[in-house]
């Protein structure tokens, strides 16, 4: 199978350079020909502080048209450079990031100068705050996927873990009245799904992809059923959780621009920071991580040297599930406080995509999740100033990007070798 994948991929590999250069140039041309040619007179305003913030940061005013031409021109140059010069991987990634950033800035400048915006500035701080907040369940879900798949078990049940985590957090926090207990229950609920997944995948050898899809269906049905049966008739007792309030980190939270974005949020954001670091360092810098990766790549070899394959897999799925459960708890006790039917609404599948997009690494998954979170935040901002672009076109961007990524056009992605294969000791 791997041999086939290699041979099937080779024609794409040859063209990839051309394709990448073409795509980068196309972005530059869109900047110039759409946002430049159809620009509106006047300046776009980028506000760098929240309204009513104690620290004043001057806003940036730039004319929309010239900005689009300059950024578009730069993008075209980056595209040409990609074709002409052999660059290192770091430069290639920086180039892609720059072109995407230029595109977004041109788009924002064009939107903000339009008559529909009524001079409302683009608030960069609130846009990025929204990005981080929206990314929390995605990042934690992607980390959960990473934990499982690095150990060789495919976890499609992230969606179910988020949903059950959200449900349990809301119901327990409402019944007990303590948000912390809600958070812990949500986490345990996610861990329970991880345990069921591990049990059926390893003990009963169920196909892991099928298992994940079925667990998602089951959890969606179960939470929907209990929602209608218990939560709706008695909402004040069971579906009325209070939420965590933001914690501003002293010192760091007062840094202009970055402070309110990174260090003035609920406990969930700080848990997410810790989880990213722990999983990344744990997987790639510790003995435990080496064992996990060995189990995911070659369980037989790992077993031969005395690593407990099943133990590692059980542990990773349960711990990953607990992370995803925290992500689910964020949806209720972290933001709105009440549970609603199917409120994870596909976030778990996007987290899965983010993990694959990020090539099965915690940091990569985090970056991809932030990208997805940003498109959502951007979409809601553009919707709020009634830009005449269909929100649906913007919404589909992350999914199209993921398809392009897995089709190998952004570079080959490869799963851990034993991913999805049950280990049966011979």
């Amino acid at each position, binding site marked *: *199978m*791997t041999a*086939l*994948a290699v041979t*099937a*991929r080779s*024609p*794409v590999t040859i063209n990839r350079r051309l394709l990448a250069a073409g795509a980068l140039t196309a972005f530059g041309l869109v900047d110039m020909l759409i946002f430049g040619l159809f620009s509106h007179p006047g300046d776009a305003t980028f506000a760098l502080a929240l309204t009513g913030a104690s620290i004043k940061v001057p806003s940036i005013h730039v004319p929309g048209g010239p900005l689009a031409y300059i950024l578009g021109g730069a993008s075209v140059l980056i595209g040409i450079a990609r074709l002409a010069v052999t660059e290192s991987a770091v430069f290639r990634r920086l180039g892609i990031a720059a072109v995407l950033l230029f595109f977004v800035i041109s788009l924002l400048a064009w939107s903000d100068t339009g008559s529909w915006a009524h001079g409302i500035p683009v608030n960069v701080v609130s846009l990025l705050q929204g990005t981080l907040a929206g990314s929390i369940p995605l990042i934690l879900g992607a980390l959960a996927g990473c934990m499982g798949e690095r150990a060789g078990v495919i976890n*499609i049940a992230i969606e179910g873990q988020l949903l059950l985590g959200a449900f349990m957090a809301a119901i327990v926090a409402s019944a007990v009245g303590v948000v912390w207990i809600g958070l812990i229950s949500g986490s345990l609920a996610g861990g329970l799904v991880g345990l069921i997944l591990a049990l*059926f995948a390893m*003990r*009963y*050898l*169920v*196909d*892991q*992809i*099928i*298992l994940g*899809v*079925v*667990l998602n*269906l*089951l959890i*969606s*049905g*179960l939470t*929907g*059923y*209990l*929602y*209608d*049966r*218990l939560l709706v008739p008695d909402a004040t007792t069971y579906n009325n959780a209070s939420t965590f309030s933001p914690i501003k980190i002293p010192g760091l939270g007062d840094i202009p621009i970055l402070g309110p974005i990174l260090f003035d949020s609920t406990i969930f954001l700080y848990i997410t920071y810790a989880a990213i670091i722990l999983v990344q360092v744990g997987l790639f810098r510790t003995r435990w991580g080496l064992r996990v990766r060995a189990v995911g790549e070659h369980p037989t070899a790992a077993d031969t040297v005395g690593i407990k394959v099943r133990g590692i897999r059980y542990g990773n799925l349960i711990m990953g599930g607990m992370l995803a459960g925290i992500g689910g708890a964020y949806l209720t006790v972290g933001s709105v406080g009440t549970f609603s039917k199917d409120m994870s609404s*596909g976030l778990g*599948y*996007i987290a*899965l*995509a983010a993990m*694959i997009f990020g090539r099965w690494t915690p940091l990569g998954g985090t970056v991809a999740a932030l990208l997805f979170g940003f498109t959502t935040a951007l979409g809601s901002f553009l919707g709020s100033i009634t830009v005449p672009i*269909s929100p*649906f*076109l913007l919404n*589909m961007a992350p*999914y*199209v990007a*993921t*398809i392009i990524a*897995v*089709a*190998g*056009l952004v570079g080959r992605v490869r*799963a*851990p*070798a*034993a*991913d*999805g*294969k*049950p280990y049966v000791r011979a």
Partner: protein
Amino acid sequence: MSDEESVLPGPAAESGPPKPGATPEPGAVADQSAAAEPGTALDPGTVPEQRPASEPGPASERGRAPGGGPAPEPGGRESPSYSRVIIGAILQDRPAVVTVLAIFSALVLGGLIIAFSDTTVLHAWSVFFSAPGSAISAAWQAAAAAYSALFEGSIVNPHTVTAAFHGGPVGAIFYPISQTVSQATPEILTGLAVALAFRAGMFNIGAASQWIGGAIVVTYLGFAVSMPPVIHVLVCLIGGFAGGAVMGWIVGDLKARTGAHEVIVTIMINYVMYDVLSYVLDTPSALQQPHQANLISPTVATNAQLPHVGGPPPQAGLGFIVALLAAGGMWWLLERSTLGFEFRTVGANPNAARSAGMSVQRTWILAMLLAGGLAGLSGAVTIQGTAPFSLNTQSYGTYGIDGITIALLGRAKPVGVVLAALLFGALNAGGTAMEAATSVPVDISEVIEGLIVLFVAAPPLIRAVYRLRKSQAGAPEAVAKGWNG
């Protein structure tokens, strides 16, 4: 998806030597005589699976067939009694038995969930030690009331039968079953779409996107073009097939060319198509109904609508016939045609297929194309055959995900898919009636469906719970595949 291939030759080959630890001879005879006909019995053998309540049903039929033939063992041992043959057949973990037990277990668990989420039942159990009998009877009554409402809403309601004897409308008797068939119709087709891909070794989670692809084409052809009656119906059906086939082809082509895993691509294309659907319904020049702020399309022309059988109340229409024809076509394709043989070979072992000179890539593309077409056809029969005759952002419902569960329950065989879809159609149609009658939320149907498929996918669990004997020694339980192929 996995074991049905190996199951076919499995029992016949494996059960030859009697198991050492098993009961004396009669059990082994039951093994052998029951194993003598599984190859042929498996397809029809799935027929009795549909009776969840009467589990001896399939066993008695099965026991009778071999009993007439080589029943007396030549060695002069006592001939196995019918009951032993029956018990022997039941105790085997044959697919039909596992399926029946899975359905039974799911219904029991579902009943427990219904009972123990009922406030009166919970109250009765809180005083369990003072009145244990009333606690148990309260639980039983809650579950029984829900399940009988489910039955009356999906199969037949006795009140309409007695009413018919006293001059009531005869058509009303068939109303519940027509609801079931109407629910099942689109799901047969999405189930076939998933099953066909399964047989070619692929997991098609994208039935929803293919459904949408087909439905968009059908809706456009339905209202924007004017044609004579029968031709318009046919053109729309073909258009739906083509619309879905394009969506499937994209997935197959990406897999064949770049190795992109179909699971992740289909999940992503689902989300893309949800947005595409909203976009075309939001664009007046595309599919949005004129003078309409909501995201809804115009209704398709009367000429393009599928006729109903027997007046308004029974909703079962020609769409059901289309679905059955599609199932028949898929059976012919898989069992009787060269292309189907290639599908199955690639599904069983792509490397062997390549060695035999088959083009694996071409097979993937064709299989996904046909699978997408079937899901697109599901969109066509929904739009052309059911009530609003128009498309909105919720039209795709849960057909895509139900297709997966149905294909798994039907073991990726056309007959199995039709029966599984009818079972799930009954659960869905009955669930709606149950919610109206007993205020038990319809979501319980989804829970029961999920449990059924979970148990069907885990034969070792069923075997452990019901102490079944293992019939295929050493055969792999599942051929799980990772992202790398």
